[in-house]
């Protein structure tokens, strides 16, 4: 069972729809117990970084951390990926999980923000999440803040300079773009996550 964590940030339906299409058993849940039982955990999210505060209040933050410690595969999407870092300029008082090093920042003033639409990414061939995905694919973005490039970056994107479009570390995966909205490429990425 895949748990899609509902913490009141944006639309979970499209993520569930994609897993349904892939014939994966999944639920949208805000229950600590359900998240604790799940074989895989997905944290979607669109909107403000500060909305991740509710994860701490509800106990979901600890539940997710516990699952991760047990080696349960985790996928953070958009703000969900940003939350895997130490924090974000968007809400300096809100702590991320700190699974990945660095903090998220805004785009430079010379490009329109948010970064909305399809953009191409350069994929590292060693990535497990991008197995079978063309090394320069188009995926769909919608975000105002972005994650830094680190040793864990598995895909980068160019928009007002390079930023991390995806990162992976052991069983932890983060994607800044929306795989559930990225056509066949996105479905392949989700399929790879399911197959872990």
């Amino acid at each position, binding site marked *: 069972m895949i748990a899609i964590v509902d913490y009141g940030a944006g639309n979970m339906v499209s993520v569930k729809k994609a897993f349904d299409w892939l014939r994966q058993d999944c639920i949208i849940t805000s229950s600590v117990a359900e998240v604790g039982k799940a074989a895989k955990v997905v944290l979607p999210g*669109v*909107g403000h970084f500060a909305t991740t505060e509710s994860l701490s209040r509800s106990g979901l933050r600890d539940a997710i951390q516990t699952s991760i410690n047990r080696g349960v595969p985790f996928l953070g999407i958009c703000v969900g990926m940003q939350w895997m870092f130490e924090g974000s300029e968007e809400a300096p008082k809100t702590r991320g999980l700190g699974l990945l090093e660095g903090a998220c920042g805004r785009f430079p003033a010379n490009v329109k923000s948010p970064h909305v639409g399809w953009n191409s990414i350069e994929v590292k061939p060693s990535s497990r999440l991008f197995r079978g995905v063309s090394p320069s694919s188009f995926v*769909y973005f919608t975000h105002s803040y972005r994650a830094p490039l680190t040793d864990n970056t598995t895909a980068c994107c160019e928009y007002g300079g390079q930023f991390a479009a995806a990162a992976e570390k052991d069983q932890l995966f983060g994607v800044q773009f929306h795989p559930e909205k990225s056509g066949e490429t996105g479905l392949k990425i989700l399929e790879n996550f399911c197959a872990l």
Partner: protein
Amino acid sequence: MKGVHFENLRDAGDPAELARTHASSGADEIVLLDISATHEGRATLFETVARTAKQLFIPFTVGGGIRALEDAAAVFAAGADKISINSAALADPSLISRIAERFGSQAVVVAIDAKRSPDSASWGAYTHGGRKPTGRDAILWAKQAEDRGAGEILLTSMDRDGTGIGFDCELTRAVAEAVRIPVIASGGAGGAAHFVEVFRSGAADAALAASIFHYGYSNLSDLKKELGSHGIPVRWPC
């Protein structure tokens, strides 16, 4: 449904079927506008939205008949990624902020139907499928919509819609330069050259076309190839 100058509406086929066909032939987003909704006072067809969304894995926007936060919530629950509002936002601009606060700005598209003033010096915003002038300046309204939390502007030229003679690049540029959010140009596409023109001289961030695709006037992958050859970045292979 798709019309010429918003009149003579023709039935272009089942929306779910059309959306799937367009997506598999390379469309980057799908916009379902139930443009008769406000006029006839009926709500957006949730069932159609759900059926369309089920097999669609690219961004999906729904507009028409969304008058309140609850209408938007129902459309999102049915599987839409974004809603597009026009008349209701003009009647109560706070609707933009209320939807944006709950679902995020990325989910709120404000559609503006603009028509040139008789002296051609400015553009007015219209509602009810282009039948009612609001007395508002389209460019000022776009800025206000941005301030209220709109994530994108879907800008339709009433003068060009359905004509196939090309987008109104002057209007598009005026709005694109006035706001920092993406502007989707709509109305008037008749061929590949019009798209190149609206991206170049119109400074559009995206372009929308309906009849050109619905009735098979043009093939999407040929269009993308042509845009690519003019140095316009497109998603490829689509």
